[in-house]
């Protein structure tokens, strides 16, 4: 990996960017386990719907919708809980398959990723051939349907994959991009949500063509300078973003959203411990350890901040992750205005290395320094660190024998239930947001 560029090779002239998106991913996984669910309206969720099958969507059931409302729309709806470990494992397998075709892969969530195959042509053929092979491989090896859009830009590839669904493949020829794009409703644009669409409708803009024809200055005055210019660019398929592979491939993260607004630091810590536990056990399962720890904090007013630090040595221990993340959250809170509550916490670990063996360190630290406490968290070789590692190993082993819920830190047990099952919070984390530094 060293010495290779992180930037993808596509020069933006040929359709060589793929957007691969697993169809109704959670539902598809549940159907692998229960074939009797095939063809029926199915939703995965707890208190709210997290994913709905296409049959359920036909009734108007969509995420995120309350279960009760969904049942009113579709009385025959079958709601199943989540098989979280399976989702993670299958997602990993799918994108490992993608990675055999190109190293330039940017996973943006558990079920979708961008791939740049500009440099893979001599090995695997043109982009449509590669996409067809990936779809066949994924189907054969996991049984999951995956749709792929191919275009010259990331933006258009994503639009294409949505148009290709379900279980389809769509190539947008560079010579006919606008013919494909302009007739679409503005909602087809990645980033145009319900609110923006409503605002655009008020402005008399329903289609991408109308957006493209609008004066940029007018759009900027109504939508804000950044959003206005950005949407206008996208309407003309002007998108210079590259596929950035280091994001998805090199990080492991989890986050948890909790309803309302939590100010109690003890609760924050309990939640962080549960997240650290999740991230740590995933790292250890993959035999990885990471040097950069990023903590993500969302305040009750939806403003999000991230703080990160890069350690001297890679860590995978739950306690080390927890202590470093807590320190980062503390920093973020200290910089925020007094008394703001939180609605989300997350931890991600990047700069990953393969680490089945741990080189121990000499205890060089000067105990008198203020930071000794924090520093010692990641010194491998101290009695405390070794004890933590043994504890992690014991927990990992218990869980592999008796299941995930066999053990948990006492502080994490009482961290409360939220409307969305906690594990969905992890899965929903957009990998693109797990940015380092």
């Amino acid at each position: 990996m060293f010495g290779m560029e992180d930037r993808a090779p596509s020069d933006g002239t040929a359709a060589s960017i793929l957007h691969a998106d697993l169809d109704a991913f959670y539902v598809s996984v549940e159907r692998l386990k229960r074939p009797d669910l095939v063809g029926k309206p199915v939703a995965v969720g707890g208190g709210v719907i997290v994913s709905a099958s296409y049959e359920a969507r036909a009734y108007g059931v969509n995420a995120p919708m309350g279960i009760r409302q969904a049942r009113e729309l579709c009385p025959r709806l079958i709601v199943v809980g989540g098989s979280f470990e399976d989702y993670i494992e299958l997602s990993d397998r799918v994108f490992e398959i993608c990675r055999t075709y190109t190293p330039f892969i940017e996973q943006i969530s558990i079920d979708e990723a961008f791939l740049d195959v500009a440099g893979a042509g001599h090995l695997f053929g043109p982009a449509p051939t590669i996409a067809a092979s990936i779809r066949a491989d994924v189907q054969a090896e996991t049984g999951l349907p995956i749709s792929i859009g191919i275009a010259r830009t990331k933006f258009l590839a994503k639009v294409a994959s949505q148009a290709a669904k379900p279980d389809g493949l769509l190539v947008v020829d560079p010579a006919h991009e606008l013919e494909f794009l302009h007739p679409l409703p503005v909602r087809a644009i990645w980033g145009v949500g319900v609110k923006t669409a409503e605002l655009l409708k008020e402005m008399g803009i329903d289609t991408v063509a109308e957006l493209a024809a609008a004066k940029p200055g007018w759009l900027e005055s109504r939508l804000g300078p950044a959003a206005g210019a950005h949407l206008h660019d996208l309407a003309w398929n002007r998108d210079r973003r590259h596929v950035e592979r280091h994001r998805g491939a090199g990080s492991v993260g989890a986050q948890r959203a909790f309803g309302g607004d939590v100010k109690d630091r003890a609760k924050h810590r309990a939640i962080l411990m549960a997240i650290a536990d999740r991230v740590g056990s995933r790292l250890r399962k993959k035999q990885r350890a990471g040097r950069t720890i990023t903590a993500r904090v969302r305040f009750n007013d939806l403003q999000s901040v991230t703080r990160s630090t890069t350690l001297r040595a890679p860590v995978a221990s739950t306690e080390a992750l927890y202590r470093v993340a807590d320190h980062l959250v503390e920093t973020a809170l200290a910089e925020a205005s007094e008394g703001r509550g939180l609605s989300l916490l997350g931890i991600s670990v990047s700069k990953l290395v393969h680490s089945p063996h741990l080189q121990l360190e000499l205890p060089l630290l000067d105990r008198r320094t203020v930071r000794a406490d924090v520093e010692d968290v990641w010194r491998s070789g101290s009695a405390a660190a070794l004890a933590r590692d043994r504890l992690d190993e014991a927990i990992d082993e218990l869980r592999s024998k008796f299941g995930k819920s066999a053990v948990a830190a006492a502080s994490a047990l009482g961290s409360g239930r939220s409307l969305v099952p906690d594990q969905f919070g992890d899965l929903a984390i957009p990998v693109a947001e797990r940015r380092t530094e």
Partner: protein
Amino acid sequence: MRIRAERDDLADVLARAARAVGTRSPQQILQGLLCDVRGNRLEVTGTDSDVTIRTTLEVEVLEAGRTVVPAKLAAEAVRKLPVGAVTLSAEEGEVEITGNGPRFRLREFVVNDFPDIPDTIEAPLVEVDGEAFVAALAQVGVAASGDDARPTLTGILFEAHDDGLRLVATDSYRLALRDLPGIAAGETSLVPYRALREIGRTIADAKLGVQLDDRQAAFSSARGRMTARVIEATFPNYRQLLPDEYPNRLSVSKAALLDAVGRAALVAEEHIPVRLSLSESGVELSVTRQEVGEETEHIEAAYSGEEMTIAFNTRYLTDGVGAVAGDEVVLETIDPLKPGMLSGGSDGFQYLLMPVRL
């Protein structure tokens, strides 16, 4: 300025001073060598502002004066001329290097931009055996860190111990220490190993003068002088790291162990350790790498203590064993998670190495 000298002599003084010149200096003038001609001598100075090397050569002086020449280019140009006398001159912004036909005309750097490096130190000069001192620096230097993010660990500590000088370096995974009895220690100083490493290749001679104060370290010989800015930080309290005693002791042939670890390293990657199983019959080395294979071998050795298996990073182990003087290496251990100590018996060298947890 204008001088004449033998090609090999001139190439030598230029190349040695150029070793202080950094490859990525932000200041262009630091890519140059100051050539100062006075009396019958040429004095060449190269610096990266932390480390400065000055070399001198007796030359035929045609005209005294000063110039700054592009370091690497001038040194290489002289070296590549035909054998024989070489003329180096500077005039009106141009440096000319000629000898037996070829002629280089290079742009001269602005002489007055060259920094004025203070290289006088008030501290007393201690004279040491140059060869032995350079060897001791190399022995200890293997444990110095190359990570500039941790500057404290990139130096070698000079401090008084008993009635001699002690050199210590650590990168936090291993610690090397060498006692040099009978050498008066100056002020306790932390000298960048990056500079010390160059002594052997630049100014080392049979006799070497050492001076240390709280800002600079200076090393001088008949071949030149090096000064280095010391690292202004407190070296970790290393004494607390040295275990009082070790219950287990292995004594093994240095050559046999080095060869064996070298073979094991073929299979190991950087992060895969070599396992040493210690027992009365000697030491069994093994390394296993998933999807590649394994290597095992047995070396006869004298061992006293409990049977145990301890694992080390192959490179760190090679560095330590290689640095031990003498034919026998002693490895002392406590348990698989505590540091092991490598030594060679009586030369005052100790190498403390943290194991890899299996």
